């Protein structure tokens, strides 16, 4: 089972609950599941999970190319992959709406990460506090649950009225979107702490602060990292909304402007760039999770 949880295919979560469920059963039950030890010498046509992922992406690209090559859809609605690639080159070198692709991307990444940084330094302590203290929970829980389901676009006008149209409003909007899932994930992690670990630390003489520092916080790290992953996801989706506010730069702004002039290839290119950046960070975070939380699911 341990080797199953170590060798992770790209599209799988660190936890593979099905593999864990199947693990005690004979290898035959796990037919079709990744289990190099049970398969024995490989015969015939074998394809790895990474290969399947790659084939899926290539298949979609081929379908896209086919649809545009056969002119089934006018290029105004669906430009060909090649046109998008050329646009990528053009915007990267010459820019679009007064900034190059890199400037747009850097601005957006800076906004998302400023918001994420603020969220980590505030939501994690709040999550720990409400996980440990019932009164703090009574204060924060209704607040978080009240604003969490509201779409950021709904309170965007209010933020503009209060904080103007500067960088602050944009970062604040993304920050608010990240805060709730991160605080809730941290709370969940804190509540998952094994009571015996807390008690063991207490009998070794731990003070209340030492319990938080040495037992509770490390126990919550896997959940906090999951919270960061979820938070980054909503952060990117809120970015476009944030860049509706009098922005002059940013990927969301670039897509918005392109859409207004029906420059569909820039729209698609912008979407792909956001997807690329977001998934790069997602895989980076998974890597961090494996590297720094190697005990997850094992101890």
């Amino acid at each position: 089972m341990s080797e199953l949880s170590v060798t992770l295919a790209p599209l799988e979560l660190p936890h593979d609950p099905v593999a864990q469920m199947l693990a005690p059963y004979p290898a035959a039950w796990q037919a079709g599941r990744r289990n190099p030890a049970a398969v024995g010498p490989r015969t015939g046509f074998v394809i790895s999970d990474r290969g399947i992922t790659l084939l899926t992406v290539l298949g979609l690209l081929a379908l896209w190319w086919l649809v545009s090559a056969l002119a089934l859809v006018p290029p105004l609605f669906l430009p060909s992959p090649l046109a998008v690639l050329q646009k990528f080159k053009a915007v990267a070198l010459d820019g679009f709406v007064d900034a190059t692709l890199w400037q747009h991307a850097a601005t957006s990444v800076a906004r998302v990460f400023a918001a994420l940084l603020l969220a980590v330094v505030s939501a994690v302590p709040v999550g720990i506090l409400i996980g440990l203290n019932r009164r703090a929970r009574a204060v924060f829980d209704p607040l978080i649950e009240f604003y969490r389901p509201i779409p950021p676009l709904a309170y965007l006008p209010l933020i503009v009225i209060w904080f103007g149209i500067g960088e602050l409003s944009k970062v604040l909007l993304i920050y608010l979107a990240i805060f709730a899932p991160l605080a809730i994930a941290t709370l969940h992690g804190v509540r998952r702490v094994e009571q015996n670990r807390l008690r063991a630390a207490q009998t070794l003489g731990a003070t209340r602060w030492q319990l938080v520092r040495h037992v509770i916080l490390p126990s919550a790290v896997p959940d906090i990292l999951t919270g960061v992953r979820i938070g980054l996801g909503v952060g990117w989706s809120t970015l476009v909304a944030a860049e509706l506010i009098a922005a002059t730069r940013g990927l969301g702004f670039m897509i918005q402007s392109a859409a207004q002039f029906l420059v569909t290839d820039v729209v698609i290119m912008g979407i792909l760039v956001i997807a690329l950046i977001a998934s790069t960070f997602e895989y980076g975070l998974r890597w961090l999770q494996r590297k720094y939380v190697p005990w997850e699911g094992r101890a």
Partner: protein
Amino acid sequence: MIRLQAVSVTYPSAARPVLRNLSLDLHDGRFTVVIGASGCGKTTLLNLIAGFLQPTAGSASIDGQPITGPGAERGVVFQSDALLPWQENVAFGLRLAGQSLQQRQAKAREYLALTGLQDYADAAIWELSGGMRQRVSLARALAVDPRFLLLDEPLGALDALTREQMQEHLLQVWKASGKGIFMITHSVEEALFLATDLVLLRARPGRVASVRRLHFGERFAAGESARSIKSDPRFVSLREEILEQLLHPQADEVPEEAYS
């Protein structure tokens, strides 16, 4: 000396007490083993002594001072090892006490050697077997030099062979450290082999049925082999007697109504 005086524990949601009017003394340097049917409040008793729980009535004290919470003079080893996978374990208590890395490493080596784990100092805990993890847990509790060690079925999850080795190991550690040990077990043979004071608990509500003074563990510590002790006719007859008492509690006890 830890003294429980007429303690009763009733959980808020339960109608009947888990422990009622229980008195027990734990002496320094002695090996007190508690045995009893499941549900007789053994773990509740340990939680009281450790300070995780306050008695509903009666008092728990150490040297006359009431026990108000967990403390470093009462180390606990849990049935699940409760190790921390993200950091040093054996020296954890020393780190909490603010000792330097060098002091901690020296102490950690000393206690790993005492528990026979010197070759595993740098192993990740998920690479260790159940018996080794339990020994790490024991070394961690010993490293802060507590007066008493409280063991909650520490060998319950181990296979039979490892279990016997760990029993001998516990006696060696007890002999070498001179600490007062309080241990809970389900195994009559284990209890007889280890205990200097064997406490038999009766269930519903939990109360002391008998306390016996034994010397089998001391004989092992003095050099006699475990096999020879466990096949001693007195050991065998005592084992049968206690098993009989556990399986068929006789009416020679005070009937439950007498308490209410």
